[in-house]
Each structure stands twice: as C-alpha cells, then as structure tokens.
C-alpha cells in the first residue's frame, strides 16, 4: 500500500482533483468576485457543457468538437441569462440568489425534457495511459491538469495584462467610480458573466468522461465549487487556487488512508476551522 507506485499515483490523483476543482470553481469565483452575484445555477451551466458534448456526439460530431463548442454555447447562454435576469438584480443579492436558484430548477427540467431523465454517455476523447519509466497514469487526467493550468494562465493574463482586465479590476474595486470614469459597467458585467459561464461549460465538457451525466448532476458540482470558493476567498483569483489545493490534496490524501465518509467529514472540519480563524477565506480579495 505504501510502495512508490501507489504513492506516485496518489500524488497524481491529488493533482488531478485539485485541477478539476479549479476548473469547476473558476467560473463561480469570477462571477462572484467581480459582479457580486452568487450564481446558484452554476452547476447547471457546468452540466450544460457536458450535455453539449452529448449533443455533439448524438449529431455525429467528434468529442473534441463538442468540447470546443461547450464554452461557446454555455457562454452565449450565460450572456442571455445576464441580460434577461441578472441585469435587473445587481444590488440585490438575496433576489439574485432566489432568481438563480429558480433558474437552476428551470434548466434542470429543460434538460430533462430535451435529453430525458436517463444517464447519457459519449465516447471517451482520449483513452489510454502515459508511461514514464514504467509508471503509467491515464493520459486524460494529465490532459485535465494541463487544461486547468491553461485556464489559470489565461484568466491571470486577461485580468492582469489586458485593458479588459484593468476595467474588470476597477469595477471590482469600486463600480460607481469605474462608471464615472466612462467604463461601460453594464457591458463589462455582461462579458464577465458570459466568461464565467463559458468557463463552467468548458469544465463540464472536459469532465464528461469522468462523471455521470444526468439532469440532476449539476447540483453536486455547485456544492463543490461553492466550498472551494468560500474556503479560498472571494475577489482574488488565487483564492480558487488556494481553496482547490487545500480541499483537493487533503481529500485525496485522507481518502487513501481512511474511509471515504470519515475523510470527507474531516475535510469539512478543517474547512470550518480555517473559516473560523480566517472568515474571508485563505486569500483576501
């Protein structure tokens, strides 16, 4: 149980889980951090990405086409949601909570009507192992880690190296001042919401081979993303990294040694302790 290969595998398992958590949580963190909106339909945006891959497969398209389409489809959908619902509720956090929860119920039922209530499957885009010095690990998981890294780099680049990013950061700091400086805050909110949704959709599409695809599946991903974002701290991208690192590594490490139920409970206890002493999360925004 403690041989080198087992430990190496477990380390990579942890790294994959951290990467997956980053992918799942990034969209929620950006929307929450910039706009101040808690999108309770985030899990549904995630699973819509998976369903885009399913739909692409049903139309005879390649899995990678589905993965490429998912952020576009879900991003556009997110934009429509922002214009149609979120836009009217900016200064009203409780109403947005209610509205996005209602939206999540509607999306779940729409998925059920269009795709049916049954579990769906699509072909694996990249099955096989990567072998290094006789040690092998699934290549798709390595790909997920790479994709997560790419998403982090793109997000950091946009937020810290572009004009768009400067405006976003301005809005995050003080939206009224930003508006007074002729930044079209409404348009920026639209783009941010669409971008966060697109990220959620991309995460769902990438995770399709590793999860169960059903109309109700989105809820557990909302819970996980929430957990990571609250723990990591809102308002700073590094928060997502911190939260994902703590949750991912701890859970993987513990679940190798003790029962899964106890491990998940312990992770919760650690999170509670961290929040108790740092209510703003690991990284202050």
């Amino acid at each position, binding site marked *: 149980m403690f041989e080198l*290969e087992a430990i190496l595998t477990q380390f990579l398992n942890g790294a994959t889980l951290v990467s997956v958590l980053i992918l799942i949580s990034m969209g929620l963190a950006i929307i929450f951090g910039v706009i101040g909106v808690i999108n309770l339909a985030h899990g549904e945006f995630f699973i819509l990405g998976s369903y885009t891959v399913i739909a692409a497969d049903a139309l005879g398209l390649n899995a990678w086409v589905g993965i490429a389409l998912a952020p576009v489809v879900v991003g556009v959908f997110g934009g429509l949601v922002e214009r149609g619902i979120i836009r009217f509720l900016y200064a009203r956090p409780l109403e947005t909570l209610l509205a996005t929860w209602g939206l999540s119920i509607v999306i779940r039922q729409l998925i059920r009507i269009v795709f049916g209530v*049954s579990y769906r499957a699509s072909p694996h885009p990249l099955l096989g192992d990567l072998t290094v010095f006789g040690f092998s690990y699934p290549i798709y998981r390595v790909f997920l880690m790479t994709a997560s890294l790419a998403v982090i780099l793109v997000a950091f680049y946009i937020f810290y190296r572009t004009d768009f990013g400067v405006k976003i950061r301005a809005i995050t700091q003080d939206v009224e001042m930003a508006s007074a400086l002729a930044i079209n805050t409404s348009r920026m909110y639209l783009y941010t919401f669409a971008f966060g949704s697109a990220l959620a959709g991309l995460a769902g599409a990438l995770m399709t081979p590793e999860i169960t695809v059903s109309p109700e599946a989105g809820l557990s991903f909302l819970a996980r993303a929430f957990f990571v974002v609250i723990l990591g701290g809102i308002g700073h991208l590094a928060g997502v990294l911190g939260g994902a690192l703590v949750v991912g590594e701890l859970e*993987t490490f513990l679940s*190798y040694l003790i029962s*899964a139920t106890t491990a998940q409970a312990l992770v919760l206890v650690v999170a509670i302790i961290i929040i108790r002493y740092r209510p703003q999360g690991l990284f202050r925004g």
Partner: protein
Amino acid sequence: MAKAIERRQALKYLGYGLGAAAGTSVLGFPSVLRASKHPVKMGILTSLTGVHAIFGETMLRCAQFAHKEINDKGGIAGRKLELVIEDDESDPKVGIEKARKLIKREKVEVIVGAISSAMRNAVGTVTTKEKTVFVYPTYYEGGYCHEGVFVTGAIPNQQIEPFVPWIMENVGKTFYIAGSDYIWPKETAKVVRALVEKQGGQVVAPEEYFPWNTGDFSSLVNRVARAKPAVMYSLLIGSDSVTFLKQFHNFGLKKTTRVCTSGVAEKEAAGLGEAGVGIVSSQSYFMTLDTPRNKEFLDGFRRMFPTEKVVDSIAEGMYNGVHVGALAVAKAGTSDWNALNKAFPGVRFNAPQGEIWMADNRHAALNSIIAECVNDKGELRIIKNFGVTPPKVTCFQ
C-alpha cells in the same frame, strides 16, 4: 290523550326501526353490491423527481401499463382499477408524507412503490401503522418482515447466492468489494463475503463504503490496482455507480479485473458507454430476455409509451407488483387488511420474467439471471438463467 301520544311515538319509533333495518340491509349487503360501484384505488408512490427519477419514471409507466391491461380485461372482480399517483421526490421524508396522504386522504387500498431501502423503511412505518397493504417492487438486501408488506423484488438468495459461485467458477476467486454507504450494500456485502469464503475464495481487502455524490474514486481505483483482485464487486448505486465504473475504466483496470455487480442494469449501462463493456450483472429480469411473454410485454409497453427505451428489473418489478396487488384484491374479495394479508400468499402471475408467485414469507419466487454488457450502447446479453427461485428470508429488519 297520553295514549294517543304514546301511539304516535310508537309509530315513529317503529318507522325508525323499519328504516334502520332497511338501511342496514342495503348497506350491510357486503362489498358485492356497494363495491361494484366503487373502483379499487391503488396508490403508486415512486420517485418522479430527484436523484431516483431515472428509475421512477419508467416504474410509473409500467404501473400505468399494468393498469390499462387490468381494466381492459374487466378490472378487479368487476371493479375498475384506479391509480392514484404520488411523487416521493427521492426523499424518504416526503415518502412518509405522501404515503399518509394516499392512505388518509385518497383512501387507497394498496400502495405499490418505493425504490431505495431507506424509502421502503420510511413508507413501511406508515403503512403498517395505518393497516394498508404495501407492495415493494425493488431488489433489496432481504430480511424486511412486516405484516402487510409484500415484496416483488429479488433478495440475496435469488440474486447473490447463485451469482457468486458462478463468478468464482468463471471469473476468479479473489474479490474486492466496495459500495455506497447504507444498508443495502452493507448487508449484501456480508452475503457476498460469506459465499466467497465458503467456496475457498478471498476478499482481498476490507469492504469500502462511500457517501452519496462522491465525485472522485481515484483513491479506490488506486487501492484496487495495488490489490489486483480477479473480481471488482461493486455495490455502488445510481450515479455513484456510473461515476466509479467510468473512472475504473478510464484507469484501464478492466484489463486485469472484471467488474461484477448486483447494482447495475440497463439504466446504469446506458450512462456508461464503452465503460460498461464486460460488466456482469445479476437481476431477476433483463430486457433482452428472449421469451414470447417478454416480447408481448415489451411490444404492448412500447405501443403505449413509444419514447420509453429501457425497462429494467425495478420497473418490471413494479409492473408485477401492480398485477399481483390486483390479483390479491380480487382473491380477497374485500379491502379488509386482514383478508388481503391472507390473500397474497399463493398468488401467481405470468410476469415478463416468467411465472412468479407469492410465497408464505411475503416475498416472491423470482427469476435469477446473469447478463453481461456487450457494447457501448448498454445492451445486456443474458449468459446464464437459473430459473425461478423461491425466496428464503431471515428476518432482521
């Protein structure tokens, strides 16, 4: 004067008496006269929303199909069958509420439904207290012996006892067992372990249990990869089962370890795609059963519900439950709880899985079939049919 009043009063009371006698004779005329005007109300309680909706929806359709068949043939001893449908929302607390509503407000004579053991136990507390018959159609861990509760789902001596020796003969003698963290996997694991050890096999590690919505099974897969058993016996259910088996497949473990399970059937296989290929499952019914009766059932079902693609053993159990319930009510001739309880044992029904019957222990003699998933479309091909097996029950819950 007083005598006149007394006479009037006497006539009045005589009138009352005659009226009462006449009334009693009309009302007292047993169920026959009154009942032919009243339909038999059967409560259908299943998960139409929530995580078990994937099973519940088809269960409902099978109940509706059985309802149509029964009424087309003249109903239950001349009385029409009426279904009252309630959604337990995959939540035992709601199941209790809805069971109460069905019994107290709708006054159903029989309740058929429930998927998980948690739901069955919850609903069972209500039906036993309110003295209403409850028919449970889903395979489970056995041992539930409560008056008024009848089971048309398979139990371990039917689903596991023939299965494990077959696995040891055809797949291997080393097992790894993992399941979801509740009663059905835990009790079933005990049965599997006992059978494995009795036949000289070995369970290579302690059983592992996972809470609902565990998203990442890579640690379990890692441990299984180190242990290298011949058989991975999975007792995970629902979406956890699909997630685990997909990840198991993605790690390439199916090359060295065969997945055998009593918790995977057509519905789960549909969500597995290529990850399902090679999985061996044990149920009392598979849709691919090649008999004229099953073909007749599927044709009729698909004509009524063209969009329903897949019928699994839980849905077939529901179909059987409605029919068996109807037959018991017809046999009893009354809705009296005690009479119904006596009427169930001995009821026989020509089910899609074959001829089944209710035994004295409130469980059903059911089929025992092993099937293998042969392609990425979730198609299960039958590889061994043990035939109809009477139920052996040791009461413990």
